[in-house]
Each structure stands twice: as C-alpha cells, then as structure tokens.
C-alpha cells in the first residue's frame, strides 16, 4: 500500500539554522503519527513541508506516492486537510462559510456544499441549525477548534495535517476533543500527521510517535516501543518526563 506521507532524507534550513536534517518518516494510509519534541525541534517545519508552506533544501516528500514538487501547490493543499492551533478560522465568515472554504475553492455546487457542511458540523457536535450562522467570535475555544476540524475534513481529504490542534484549550475541552478525535478517526479512517508538544496527547491519539530533537528524528515507534526500548538517552528522558 502506498504511504499517505513519506519524508525521505529531508533537509531544511531557515536562515543559517538547520531545522531538519536527514529526516525520514512514513505515515501509512489510515495511520495517525504524532510528531513530538521540544520547541525548535523541527516538528512544525516538517508538517509545513508536506503542504508546501515551506520548501525543503534537500530530500524528497511524497503525498500518496507523488512527489510534492511535481504538483501544483494549490491543488496539493486542497487535497490535504489542514487544522491549525485555535482553529485559524476566518473571523469575517460564519461557521458555515468557514467549513465550506475548500469545497467552494473546488467549485462544488451550493447544495452539495451545504449538505456536506451540515453533515460535518453534526459530526463535530455543532448542529448546523444552531451553529452554522454564528461567527467565530461567538464560539468557545473548543467550538472553534471543532469548526477547524470540520473545515479540514470538508472536501474529504484522505490525509489530514494537524498543527497543535488542541494545544490552546483548557484541560476539559482538550480531553473531550481528544476522545472525539478517536471517534472521528475510527469512522473516517484518515491518515493523520499530528504535531504536538504534549506526550500524553501523542500517546492517546497516535498509532506511532516520532520523537524529534534538534532537527533529527531520534526514534519512531509505538508507545510500548518508546517506553520499553528507547533509542537513546534523550528519548528515555523525554518519555519519562512527559509521563510524569
């Protein structure tokens, strides 16, 4: 089976700082992989290389088998879901308009857009009748984040990129969104590449966890693998502290 996302020997510098070096990782179809590490470890950079918000200096990145450089970045982004911290909703649009963003860009007819938006809002627990006409300002942080998830899923992308999606939420809202994330995952079977700085969240949501430090991948594996056989002292420490 073709992997959803593939990094192969990727190198990236920002200015004269090397942010990623020799980075190789695979997200299999339907799998959730969490990128985790201290700030500055290169995890967000890795995510942005996938939808070409950044371009690599070396190596290759493939989405569903196709080299991202061979594809028009606009078309690439429209077939990838993208969730960012605090939702990144457009403040001048209501919830429905926000969710319909990508379908509108893709030129779906209005009726189809509307049905899709209602279906997704229902799924993320924000019934359209009540929430569709609201502006982002009128929502709580957790609700905004749900709209962000619905927006990312609107055009039914097989692969979803999430950048600290639940990072800005209070522990209760975060917990319930994490629970629901697993439920959506089970129903939709998307491949997800998730950036987080919270090890508990990574263990809870991801099938495999990729630990980054200083632009290098230290280890990738399941929770058991990281706990039982950490690749080096950094991973051992990181896992021990993250759990504590």
């Amino acid at each position, binding site marked *: 089976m073709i992997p959803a996302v593939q990094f192969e020997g990727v190198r990236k510098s920002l200015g004269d700082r090397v942010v990623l070096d020799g980075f190789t990782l695979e997200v299999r179809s339907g799998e959730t992989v969490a990128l985790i590490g201290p700030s500055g470890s290169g995890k967000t950079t890795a995510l942005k290389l996938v*939808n070409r*918000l950044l371009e690599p200096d070396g190596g290759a990145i493939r989405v569903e088998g196709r080299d991202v450089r061979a594809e028009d970045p*606009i*078309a*690439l*982004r*429209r077939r990838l879901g*993208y969730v*960012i*911290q*605090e939702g*990144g*909703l*457009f*403040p*001048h649009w209501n919830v429905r308009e926000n969710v319909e*963003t*990508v379908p509108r*860009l893709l030129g779906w007819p209005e009726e189809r857009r509307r049905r899709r938006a209602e279906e997704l809002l229902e799924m993320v627990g924000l019934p359209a009748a009540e929430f569709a006409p609201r*502006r982002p*300002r*009128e929502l709580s942080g957790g609700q905004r984040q749900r709209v962000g998830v619905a*927006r990312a899923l609107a055009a039914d992308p097989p692969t979803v990129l999430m950048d600290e999606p639940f990072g800005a939420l209070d522990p209760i809202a975060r917990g319930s969104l994490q629970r629901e994330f697993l439920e959506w995952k089970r129903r939709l079977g998307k491949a997800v590449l998730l950036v987080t700085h919270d090890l508990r969240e990574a263990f809870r949501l991801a099938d495999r966890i990729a630990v980054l430090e200083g632009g290098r991948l230290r280890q990738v594996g399941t929770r058991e693998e990281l706990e039982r056989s950490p690749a080096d002292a950094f991973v051992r420490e990181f896992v021990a502290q993250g759990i504590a």
Partner: protein
Amino acid sequence: MSGLPGYFWERRGEIGALAGQHLALVAISTALAVAVGLPVGVALARRPRVARPVLAFASVVQTIPSLALFGFLIPLPLIGGIGARTAIVALLFYALLPILRNTHAGITSVDPAIVEAATGLGMTQRERLRSVELPLALPVVLAGVRIAAVVSIGLATIAAAVGAGGLGVLIYRGIATVDNRLILAGAVPAALLALLVDGALGLAERRWSAWRRA
C-alpha cells in the same frame, strides 16, 4: 451677524451650485486616489523593503503647502493649467497618502495565522486577497478613505485659486471685498459638508466592520 441665516437663504442658489462643484471635485479626486492607492498599497504590503521609502516619499509630498502645489501644477502640460483638472490632480496627491498608508497598514495587520490558514487550505494569492485580506483590512482602508475625503473638502476651498470653482469662490470673493458674511457663506457649508461626509463614511466603516463585534 443676526441676519446670517437670511443672508445664506438669499444666496442658496449660488451656495448650492458651488457646494455641488465642491463635492464633485472631492468625489472625483478621492475616487481616483482609491483607484491608485488601493492597488499600490496592496503591492507595498507584499514588499516591505520598498514600502518604507515609498510611504516616506508620500509623506513628504503631503507636506508641500497646498497653495504652492497648485502653483507648481499650473504650468504643467496635460495635468496642469487653469481649472478643475489641476485642482483634482492636486487633491489626488493629498488624498493618496492616507489611503496608501491605511491600505498598507490594513493588509499587513491581518493576523499571520489567518493568512497562513488561507494559504494552507489552498487559496491562490488572488483568492486570499479578495476573500480574506481585503475584507479584514476594509475597516482600516475605509478609515483612510474617510480621512482623505474630509481633508480634501477643506483643501478644495483653495481650488478656487486655480479657477476650479467650489465653495472657495465665496471665500476668496469675501476676502477680496472684506465681507465676512460672504466668507462664512463659503466656510460654513464647507465645514458642514466635511461633517456630513465624515459621518456617512464613519457609518460605512462601522457597518463593514460588523464582524468585529461579537
């Protein structure tokens, strides 16, 4: 001064005609300033290194005394001469800076996270500008248009000096004949016009920024 309203009423025909000319001068020059200032302001927002010197230059132009600018323009071919055209060009120069500066400020102050979301979801630069950046910058842009229009109404009284008409005609005539009532017949309607335009554009500004209020 007791008979001032009666004096205005007697001259309502002339005051009305000149106020119409006045408003036309301001409307045309402000519209042209928007047509030039908006795209240039957007272009500058994309090029921070060019933006600084251009905005600084525009500020310098702003400091040229208006009467002197009219004088400079008169001998120029095409844009100069005596009449409304010269006045419109001069007013355009003054209206340009607030529109340019506010468009630049409006676009550059859009939350970078929002811009990145728009890009990451697959909007082209054009789509992003049209459906995200410009709408979010609009209240600030409109504030610039409002400043430009109000400043132009005051400045346009000087247009009478180059034979462009407007309420300045009454003021100049009043000065020449040492007739305060005549000066006021030009000045008071000009001030009222400024208040009116300020109010109307202020209303538009609030209307367009309705999304800010939850």
